[in-house]
């Protein structure tokens, strides 16, 4: 894919708009979590990841695992917009009989792993990356997790594991929007200094503005940041990014927008794009 930075930004907002529609239609939630990672997801699916919608199971594809499974809507949107399945299917999100469940579920083309309970993506990603290393395959494994889910001990088991096995084919992206399910990260279980923690565990860590597309493109293109080390990108983001009245507000972890709010949101997103 050879999108310009502007095109990637535009795509990110299209994914945001898709997610707003989906969550509104289904009266679902987790919109703030979707919007905070929209730029990351656009960068991954239209720039970084070596995936082919026509061959979603190709052996040497890059593997992307969404560990914050509650942000399923925007991944479904990205997969559909990227051609893994028809965009019209997004209208079935969370409806009876749909494969597009509220937390991401495998069986949808392009979805590698079901998640929803937190702290599962990185261990599984480590297993995939280890197999890739031992097979000497060239694919990369990318795991996207939330900040709140770094409370889970399973993640820290995997954080110990990845450098031990020199998994430099593994990239962890932390969507660090500073707001978790029931409060600010700082007030629940403070993660800072987060990059230093990863460095102390022998990861190659970089911090980026998770809404700066140029930075995202350049950073993801630079993996592995150091030979024989797993890479982690701490992406500083804003929950609800792109819709002013949703930004940095815990409530949008739960609320579903009204028709009027959808209209306002779309105006803002089109304005930005």
């Amino acid at each position, binding site marked *: 894919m050879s999108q310009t930075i502007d095109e990637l930004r535009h795509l990110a907002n299209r994914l945001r708009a898709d997610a707003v529609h989906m969550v509104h239609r289904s009266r679902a939630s987790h919109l703030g979590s979707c919007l905070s990672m929209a730029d990351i997801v656009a960068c991954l699916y239209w720039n970084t990841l070596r995936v082919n919608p026509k061959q979603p199971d190709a052996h040497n594809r890059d593997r992307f695992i969404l560990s914050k499974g509650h942000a399923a809507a925007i991944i479904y949107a990205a997969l559909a917009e990227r051609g893994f399945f028809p965009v019209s299917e997004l209208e079935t999100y969370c409806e009876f009989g749909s494969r597009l469940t509220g937390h991401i579920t495998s069986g949808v083309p392009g979805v*590698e*792993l079901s998640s929803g*309970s937190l*702290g*599962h993506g990185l*261990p599984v990603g*480590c*297993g995939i990356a*280890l197999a890739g290393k031992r097979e000497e395959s060239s694919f990369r494994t990318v795991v996207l997790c939330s900040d709140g889910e770094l409370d889970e001990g*399973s993640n820290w088991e995997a954080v110990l594991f990845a450098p031990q096995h020199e998994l430099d084919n593994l990239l962890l992206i932390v969507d660090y929007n500073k707001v978790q399910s029931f409060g600010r990260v700082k007030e629940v279980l403070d993660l800072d200094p987060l990059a230093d923690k990863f460095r102390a565990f022998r990861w190659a860590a970089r911090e980026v503005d998770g809404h700066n597309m140029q930075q995202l493109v350049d950073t993801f293109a630079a993996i592995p940041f150091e030979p024989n080390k797993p890479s982690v990108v701490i992406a500083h983001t804003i929950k609800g990014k792109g819709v002013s009245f949703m930004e940095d507000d815990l409530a949008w972890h739960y609320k579903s927008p009204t028709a009027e709010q959808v209209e306002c949101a779309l105006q803002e997103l089109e304005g930005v794009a």
Partner: protein
Amino acid sequence: MRTAFIEELIRLAEEDERIWLVCGDLGYSVLETFSNRFPRRYLNAGVAEQNMTGVAAGLALMGKTVFTYSIANFPVMRCLEQIRNDVCYHNLNVKVVAVGGGLAYGSHGYTHHGVEDLAVMSAMPNISVVAPGDPVEARAVTRIVASRPGPAYIRLGKAGEPVVHSKEIDVRYGKAIILREGNDLTLISIGGMLANTVCAADKLAEAGYSVRVVSMPFAVPLDDAVIQAAAVETGVILTVEEHGFGGLGTAVGESIARSGHAVTFVPLRLGRTPIKTSGTQEQLRALYGLSTEAIVSSAENAYLHCASTSQRSEK
């Protein structure tokens, strides 16, 4: 049983390069034969069972057949959600192996007693739940689950269990093994209780009973046909297991109830009260009526109860 398991696994790994062994920092003096032979298909994941199981799922997504290995509850309980979500719901080729199941680590204390595993594993989708009765069965079930796609749980004993099957046996997926035919009563055993069960059957035979002896290594899928035949043909069924509620007895009880056959049924198993004392495996088994002698006396009582009930109904 663990030696039988690892020997068989090495044989399988020689034939099938997809086979991996992943341990949770346990297996001293057992797993080295595998790790020396297949270093690139072996992994010590450390004392980190959640990650161990997640890694196993990732390896399985890459086409590997992965055996995770630790002792008693450790590969089951701490990582139960990884087994549920990552392995079972994704129907992945991960085989969870618990060595020292039941009360094998008797004197180590209850943290090391694996006595709820069959219930917990049986509640999961897609998984086969297996507890071989002796080293011969351990070899056979290892081969069976390795060759069959999908998740499996294998509860092994530890070391030094007697070989019960002196002759070659035909072990098949989901099928019970009938050691002896008999018409008065049936003893159905799972896992390491097989030796005591066979001893109890010997004593009952000496006392004049015609005893059918069944080893039931597969808790899931359960061999309903053998259970129902026993219900029809013997009138008394006792299950014998080193496990609490939710294991073989519960499953056999449901199978009998579904079949609608009237039969005297006695599940011999551990009770609700946890075992907090030290003791050998046999001593702790005896606390809950799982010694050979206790099995004999439970069987005699069940037979007498059955006989008196049928006499009453004849009157």
